[in-house]
């Protein structure tokens, strides 16, 4: 069973040399720390930056240099700034190879819900709906079950949707799952110490073993 750092580390293996990658807030942000030094990757921040570098050293923060999570960041050689319209233009025109984001629920059809819980304060979808509607390759990083112990891998999402038929892969603390084109969560691997029974118990949607 993996902790959030383990999930991030596992997802980092999906990133290939030369990829342009968009990392969402939460566990996805941690992925950046585990990208192999052997490959060259460019991180996109949808507020208008390609080539996001690490957080600045204390005292070197610049209010004009932030990421989509409003955190202070740095640039790297070859970085580019641009406006929001171009940023989502490149997302829609599929120039970003991989999008990694968190979710509250994923359905066996690849639908995703990650922006709104009825009855709770709605903060907005930010760029998530644009990313999931256009990305050619979406990996979801999330816990397998929610705090109430209910499965987040469902036959159908119960929360308001962010996008439909878009998630390709899910990495949870229990394992790695492909969302099959005809529907269903295909077990790609179980993390160390995880049993098939654990996964069966924690997965409400159709599991393909």
């Amino acid at each position, binding site marked *: 069973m993996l902790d959030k750092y383990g999930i991030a580390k596992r997802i980092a293996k999906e990133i290939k040399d030369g990829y342009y990658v968009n990392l969402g807030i939460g566990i996805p942000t941690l992925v950046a720390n585990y990208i192999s030094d052997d490959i060259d990757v460019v991180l996109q921040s949808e507020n208008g930056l390609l080539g996001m570098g690490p957080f600045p050293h204390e005292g070197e*923060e610049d*209010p*004009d240099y932030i990421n989509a999570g409003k955190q202070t960041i740095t640039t790297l050689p070859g970085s580019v700034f641009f406006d929001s*319209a171009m940023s989502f233009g490149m997302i829609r025109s599929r120039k970003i190879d991989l999008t990694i984001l968190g979710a509250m629920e994923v359905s066996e059809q690849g639908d995703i819900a990650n922006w709104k819980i009825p009855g709770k304060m709605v903060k907005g*979808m*930010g760029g998530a709906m644009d990313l999931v*509607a*256009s990305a050619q390759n979406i990996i979801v990083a999330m816990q397998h079950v929610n705090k109430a112990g209910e499965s987040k891998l469902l036959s159908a999402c119960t929360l308001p*949707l962010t996008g439909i038929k878009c998630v390709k892969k899910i990495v949870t603390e229990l394992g790695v799952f492909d969302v099959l084109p005809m529907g269903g969560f295909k077990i790609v691997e179980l993390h160390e110490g995880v049993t098939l029974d654990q996964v069966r118990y924690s997965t409400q949607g159709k599991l393909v073993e």
Partner: protein
Amino acid sequence: MINKSVSNAIEAIGEVKSGMTIAVGGFGLCGIPENLIAALIAKNLKELTCISNNAGVDDFGLGLLLQGKQIKKMIASYVGENAEFERQMLSGELEVELVPQGTLATRLMAGGYGLPVVYTPAGVGTEVAEGKEVRKFKFHGVEKDYLMEYAFEPDFALVKAWKGDRMGNLIYRGTAQNFNHTMAMCGKVTIAEVEELVEPGVLDPNFIHTPGVYVHRIFQGENYEKRIEQRTFRPKD
């Protein structure tokens, strides 16, 4: 030389009236037009419809307009950092239209590029699609559904740039560009505040982000606070 410079924010927003629709640049607190927001407060304009990616925080940015109950309707993609916003929304005082961030940017772009509508896949199959025209197009080798979204045509766009010249040419710095360029292009009237106002010819004509033709008035802002929302550092090496 066409001279669009005015002396300050109050003079610049002279024609902005209560009830108007204004696009306000910035992402979070990054690149927001601090002086123009202060002028909207000073003139106590009311019933504003604000198009902006975010709504500021309680005591800065558009949050200050919310404190003064100056905003009737907020069109934004993410509004999570603001308790007063939440209170007004839940009480029904404030109307809120949530728009996917890319759709927001693209509807603004459409206004600036003279395109009455755009089709975008964002929000297909979600509550964002409710009441909208859905149409199939084949693109990138894939046939899928798109939503028809209308261009924004705000009465005023209030933007903040790094440098600008008296003809209204603007350049931005870092991620403070964000929505500012796109909004500058779509305002029926666009007002720009800049950290440094220079004479025409100082800025390299090859590297101007927003041509002055889009900008109606420009002034050099004062006392920029440029507040940081999430001051995040890497560990000491």
